[in-house]
């Protein structure tokens, strides 16, 4: 028995009062192995101890929801007896320490969550945030960007799941703490979803996949602490991915799931074998007994503590029906995988770990899972808010509108992400009907006439200025993007990236953001079916912007009606849906042109947003739209420019209302606005549909020519060659890497 002292608890990131709870739960002092097991299960990453009270307030139910939070991933009904299974997860901390492997294993982890549910993964998206690529830390940031992108590509391309979309933002607060959030979606029969359960006393427990090594021990604990200059020393806690092994696991598990020999399955991700055994037992009210001597090991001399806490990748735990062992083993043999019989389901509700027959840990599953500490952490509104929300645009120096637009288009956050997505195989599986970079990602569902649209969105700057409104805007933007493809949004997943929750100001940001997400999801009827919380995103005491990222999934009934952002041809009418207000607060314009992050983010009327989404879906399915593009970062000027890109140079002539001045007209980021185009003969129908839903719709111009011409109240503002603008936009990100190469 180890002597438990303050230093030992500190190494396990356990507080003294948490240790008292462990002693109370066991009725005795824990063994060293048990202490390790508690420490990972009660880590922030696994237990959600700071966030749980807030997450409970999110709407998780709806007529389409087949599986809400609590399983490996959520699922929604997409019609014809099919389900879309999806989730988003963070791999921020590992990606900073070891960009390639951190990002790669993030992809591997989220894919396992999806096929664990019995779904074949068919699409990946990601939401990435880095520091600026120039300036003091530019070289390091470029290395991180290259590593993360290569890691995502290396894993996704190899396993053969297309990376079809996402977002990338470059902003100062992410310099020492990049965000790598990965989203995966899979398809399954709705009646064939598999759960992570351990039912049936006496049923055998199998371990399959890669061998267990010493990598990743305390990864979950690492993800629950801030960073400092010693973080590089934690590199051994980052795992190494093997996409080939996971491909075999994926195919073998899907094959096994077609039989009825399987009871339940869970991947060994964060907290490895410990989490899989205790969570599966807890969900079923059963126990699991394993002997670590049967666990395949990569290294010799591993202790039970190390085996239970290892986060080696590409491992699954399965409970199968007693008497069907041969069948199960044969399927894994076919794929050259060894299924090791490591234990058995018991009726005592305990996680019992043996080492060569002698018990080294015996803990009630409920103590690890359900009775983990829940903190109602103190909150206080940060003092900085009053200061930064003050903002008077009239104090800013004037910039020529065309220069402003070109500078926005050449900023890496707005510029083309082609340099990134061409490294991702975004076409494998031959379902990608809207190619990467053209708007929301759209994949067809081959078995049906439908398609699914997906978008991941967040805006850390808005959330920094007003966490609640910023989070609402993130929900609205993701839902609007999906609707711009012609899809009805039906479900969402969230990844909540925040700083240290032990600081009341951070906790307040978190609580406000969750409130905002809940409010918006309820109003737009997009329930949250699962997600992930990533706290302690701080380096040397500096927190990131509070950054909730929303992934929204929508259904297009007729896949052939899917829309992109790009103008479709000449002589179409350009219509602005929604209204522009004087809302430059927190805008990309302020930040890029003036280096200012101030003001209040745009207001959001959720009823109006819902009506707009309804209009887009209705108009797209009626075939009256040629293209649709959301107005967000950079305002309508950037939106119009992006509509002309990838069209072979189709320009436009547009006149915008002058109500609040040229800069507002062009660069305000007012919410609930979309630029759509319609063939002239469809215009009346479109305007009628908009009027019926109470959506302001104004014809602002026509497509055609080779120039991007925008006037405001008839006054010249922008007049540039489309190809010239497109060249700036195309090189915005790629240029940083070409320079580096020369």
């Amino acid at each position: 028995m180890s002597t438990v002292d303050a230093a030992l608890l500190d190494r396990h990131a356990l507080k003294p009062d948490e240790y008292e709870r462990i002693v109370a739960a066991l009725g005795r002092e824990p063994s060293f192995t048990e202490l390790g097991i508690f420490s990972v299960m009660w880590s922030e990453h696994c237990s959600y101890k700071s966030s749980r009270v807030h997450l409970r307030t999110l709407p998780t139910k709806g007529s389409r929801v087949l599986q809400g939070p609590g399983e490996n991933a959520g699922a929604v009904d997409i019609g014809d007896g099919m389900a879309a299974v999806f989730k988003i997860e963070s791999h921020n901390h590992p990606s900073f320490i070891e960009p390639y492997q951190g990002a790669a294993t993030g992809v591997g982890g989220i894919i396992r969550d999806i096929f664990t549910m019995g779904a074949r993964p068919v699409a990946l998206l990601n939401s990435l945030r880095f520091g600026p690529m120039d300036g003091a830390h530019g070289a390091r940031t470029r290395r991180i960007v290259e590593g993360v992108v290569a890691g995502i590509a290396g894993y996704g391309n190899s396993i053969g799941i297309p990376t079809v979309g996402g977002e990338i933002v470059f902003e100062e607060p992410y310099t020492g703490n990049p965000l790598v959030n990965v989203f995966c979606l899979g398809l399954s029969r709705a009646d064939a979803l598999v759960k992570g359960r351990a039912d049936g006393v006496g049923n055998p427990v199998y371990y399959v996949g890669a061998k267990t090594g010493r990598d990743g021990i305390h990864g979950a604990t690492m993800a629950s602490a801030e960073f400092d200059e010693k973080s590089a020393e934690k590199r051994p806690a980052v795992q190494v991915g093997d996409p080939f092994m996971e491909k075999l696991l994926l195919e073998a598990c899907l094959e096994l799931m077609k039989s009825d020999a399987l009871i339940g399955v869970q991947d060994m991700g964060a907290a490895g074998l410990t989490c899989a055994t205790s969570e599966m037992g807890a969900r079923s009210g059963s126990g699991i007994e394993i002997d670590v001597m049967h666990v395949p090991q990569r290294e010799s001399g591993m202790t039970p503590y190390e085996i239970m806490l290892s986060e080696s990748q590409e491992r699954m735990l399965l409970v199968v029906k007693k008497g069907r062992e041969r069948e199960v083993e044969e399927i894994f043999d076919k794929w050259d995988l060894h299924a090791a019989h490591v234990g058995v389901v018991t009726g005592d509700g305990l996680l019992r770990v043996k080492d060569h027959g002698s018990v080294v840990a015996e803990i009630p599953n409920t103590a690890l899972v359900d009775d983990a500490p829940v903190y109602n952490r103190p909150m206080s509104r940060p003092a900085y808010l009053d200061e930064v929300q003050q903002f008077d645009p009239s104090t800013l120096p004037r910039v020529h509108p065309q220069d402003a637009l070109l500078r926005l288009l050449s900023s890496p956050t707005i510029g083309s992400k082609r340099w990134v997505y061409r490294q991702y195989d975004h076409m494998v599986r031959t379902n990608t009907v809207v190619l990467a970079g053209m708007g929301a990602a759209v994949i067809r569902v081959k078995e049906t006439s439908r398609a699914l649209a997906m978008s991941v969105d967040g805006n850390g700057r808005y959330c920094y200025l007003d966490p609640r409104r910023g989070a609402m805007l993130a929900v609205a933007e993701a839902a609007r993007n999906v609707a711009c493809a012609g899809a009805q949004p039906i479900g969402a997943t969230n990844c909540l990236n925040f700083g240290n929750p032990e600081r009341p100001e951070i906790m307040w940001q978190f609580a406000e953001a969750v409130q905002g997400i809940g409010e918006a999801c309820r109003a737009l009827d997009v329930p949250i079916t699962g997600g992930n919380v990533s706290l302690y995103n701080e380096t040397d005491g500096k927190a990131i912007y509070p950054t909730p990222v929303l992934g929204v999934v929508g259904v297009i009934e007729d896949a052939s009606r899917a829309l992109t952002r790009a103008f479709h041809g000449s002589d179409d009418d350009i219509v602005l849906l929604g209204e522009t207000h004087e809302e430059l607060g927190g805008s990309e314009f302020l930040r890029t042109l003036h280096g200012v992050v101030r003001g209040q983010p745009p207001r959001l009327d959720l009823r109006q947003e819902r009506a707009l989404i309804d209009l887009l879906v209705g108009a797209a399915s009626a075939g009256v739209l040629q293209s649709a593009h959301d107005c967000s970062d950079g305002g309508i000027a950037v939106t119009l420019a992006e509509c002309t890109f990838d069209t072979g140079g189709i320009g436009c002539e547009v006149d915008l209302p002058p109500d609040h001045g040229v800069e507002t007209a062009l660069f305000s980021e007012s919410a609930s606005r979309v630029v759509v185009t319609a063939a002239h003969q469809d215009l009346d129908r479109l305007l009628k549909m908009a009027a019926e839903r109470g959506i302001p719709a104004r014809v602002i111009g026509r497509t055609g020519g080779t120039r991007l011409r925008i006037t405001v109240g008839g006054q010249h503002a922008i007049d540039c060659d489309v190809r010239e603008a497109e060249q700036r936009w195309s090189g915005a990100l790629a240029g940083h890497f070409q320079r580096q190469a020369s």
Partner: protein
Amino acid sequence: MKFAVIVFPGSNCDHDAYHAAKHVLGQDAEFIWHKETSVKGADVVILPGGFSYGDYLRTGAIAQFSPVMTAVKAFAAGGGPLLGICNGFQVLCESRLLPGALLRNRDLKFHCAHVHLRVEQTDTPFTMRAFRGQVLSVPIAHGEGNYFADAQTLAELEASRRIVFRYCDESGQVTDAANPNGSLSNIAGICNDTRNVVGLMPHPERACESSLGSTDGLVLFDSVVASLAADGALTA
């Protein structure tokens, strides 16, 4: 007419080739697991894209030792039409069914994009329905598609007209700017000396439906169907 799609561990475009043959062309199609020892009476064999054996060691290097490859080689030796796409092309080179090797792309990065190909030869079972000089829009998706062969091999390929596809621009010009990976002579695909074994890096199976942006890849599948129908007519 039956297509066999060989499935190695790590193949990931197997479903796409199967879908093109079965659902787009309406032909019979069957997956053949790499541990099988026969191609089960197939009329056409496809080695699909992917990362066979994780592309560990070298791309395509381990797959040549799979049991099914003995049957595939016999099928090819008997004149059967055999198509290697992407990783399948790499496997064909590693198996010595085609000469040369695929190196890492010259910029060391994976590329996924639509490119243009010029059909150079139409006397193979996979190009007989195309016309010489025809420009096809077909996607690529590879990190190691940079075709290399020694000078003598290259000269032989040219002399025996075995370069079947070259990367080109939209108008059919073979330029360095249109070369996505650094392949010698812009080579995108070649055939063996009996012309029944064709390997190419681009993915024709991804360009068979207009909803995916191009139907230019169909000509390879239509060609082999026509070629077999012609053979059948001759031997009947």
